[in-house]
């Protein structure tokens, strides 16, 4: 490109020198015959015309170069769009994977808290069990003759405590089952994440193999098309058959560009979904509420058992006092029985 520009500059300089020389000749020298002046003018016009045509040619070449670069930019933009689509699909997959990992971490944390609370509840239940049995035993061993109302209260209290005990045991078994389900769910979520990573890797490998196969088949089709063009140069081959084969081959090769792009679009449009995280978290919250309710029930039962135990001790003390009073009355009666004959002999 530099040499044509240099030639254009040389032509312009030659035209300027030629014109300057003509003006100087007219100004200094005496008037020349008109053929010389016409020759000078024609030479100047020819130089200007050459320079103008060279400039137009350079302009046309520049426009062609710009057209070529514009098409190259369009193709590059198409490639960049495909790369951007693949990058978006990859970023969406990474974001989904991070969400699954966060959900798995939250589920494991909630599971650990539930296990801790369940262990505390079981410990409190075991601590309460001997005292509850002693209370039930004391109520059962209440001495007779304490009145029908007291006996009825004993029976009601014992039945209530037994029923609450059975309910508590059933609640703890249900909580243990829930925690076990939560553990199974966490394991399934972890396996799901690992499976998704493996599936993404397999999908990427399949896409690469598919693109490689498409490139191979396209190259094979192009080579066959090349051989067909060589066969067409021979005179013994039917031209219509060759043209039909070439058209079929072109249709086959042109349809090989789509599978890789379609796979990328499917990956971006339909990312796989993990198990139902929200429902499982709600189940875990309900389980925690039940554990808290059982804690409160434990406290109420402990207070009730302590009150029953105090009442039982009071009843035992009263019974002992009555026994002592009765023993004193019996002793007085025996003394009266022993002293009654001697008193009768004195009176007689």
């Amino acid at each position, binding site marked *: 490109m530099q040499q044509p520009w240099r030639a254009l500059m040389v032509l312009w300089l030659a035209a300027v020198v030629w014109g300057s020389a003509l003006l100087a000749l007219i100004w200094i020298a005496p008037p020349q015959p008109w053929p010389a002046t016409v020759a000078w003018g024609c030479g100047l016009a020819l130089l200007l015309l050459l320079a103008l045509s060279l400039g137009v040619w350079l302009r046309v070449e520049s426009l062609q170069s710009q057209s070529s670069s514009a098409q*190259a930019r369009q193709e590059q933009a198409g490639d960049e769009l495909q790369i951007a689509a693949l990058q978006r699909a990859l970023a969406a997959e990474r974001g989904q994977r991070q969400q699954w990992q966060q959900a798995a971490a939250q589920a494991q944390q909630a599971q650990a808290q539930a296990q801790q609370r369940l262990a505390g509840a079981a410990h409190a239940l075991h601590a309460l069990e001997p005292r509850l049995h002693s209370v039930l035993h004391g109520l059962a061993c209440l001495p007779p003759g304490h009145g029908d109302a007291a006996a009825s209260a004993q029976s009601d209290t014992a039945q209530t405590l037994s029923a609450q005990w059975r309910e508590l045991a059933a609640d703890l078994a249900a909580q243990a089952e829930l925690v076990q389900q939560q553990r199974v769910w966490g394991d399934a979520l972890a396996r799901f994440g690992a499976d998704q990573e493996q599936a993404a890797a397999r999908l990427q490998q399949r896409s690469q193999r598919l693109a490689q196969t498409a490139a*191979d088949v396209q190259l094979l089709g*192009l080579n066959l098309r090349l051989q067909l*063009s060589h066969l067409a*140069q021979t005179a013994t081959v039917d031209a219509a058959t060759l043209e039909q084969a070439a058209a079929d081959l072109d249709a086959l090769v042109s349809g090989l560009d789509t599978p890789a792009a379609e796979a990328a679009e499917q990956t971006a449009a339909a990312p796989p979904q993990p198990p139902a995280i929200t429902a499982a978290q709600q189940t875990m919250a309900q389980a925690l509420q039940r554990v808290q309710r059982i804690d409160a029930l434990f406290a109420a039962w402990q207070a009730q058992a302590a009150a029953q135990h105090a009442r039982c001790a009071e009843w035992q003390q009263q019974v002992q006092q009555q026994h002592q009073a009765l023993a004193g009355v019996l002793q007085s009666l025996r003394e009266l029985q022993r002293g009654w004959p001697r008193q009768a002999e004195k009176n007689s």
Partner: protein
Amino acid sequence: MNGAQTWLQFRVGGQTHALDAAAVRQILRQPRLLQPPLAPAICPGWVAWQGRPLPVLDLGACLSRRPSVHGDARYLVWTQAEQGGVLAVDAVGALLHLPATVRTQHWTPVAPGLPPPWSAICGLLHADPADAIELPAVEPVAVFDPLALWQVCLFADRRAAAPAPDGGWEEP
């Protein structure tokens, strides 16, 4: 057979060029390239093709552009006038088939005198011939003569670069 001519399009450095399809024997992808030590960038090695060792010409390096010998390169095996070689290009496009009835409208021969390696251009195709019958020309495609390209690229340093032979390309 019927006077039609076919060209094979390829891309080097972002531009589309073409070769006469009659000279191209096969298109290879990632052939085993024998690279001798201290090989020049224009001729990085040799390829064995049908029992013949053929030198490889990196057309990108030859045209002072990005080297064409890379992972996605295509290698065009050509034979012409008892000579042969391999041209490494960036990509290969479709074949251009131009009937004899419209060739003169879309083919312009290049006069000798261009500096090497552009002196290996034997003509210009005005547009994609498949569309040019109905659409105006948008971009000319430079058609190279492989034998002339070989001479101007490989033997330029020996001052043996000859002008493009006239027998390789006939004016349509």
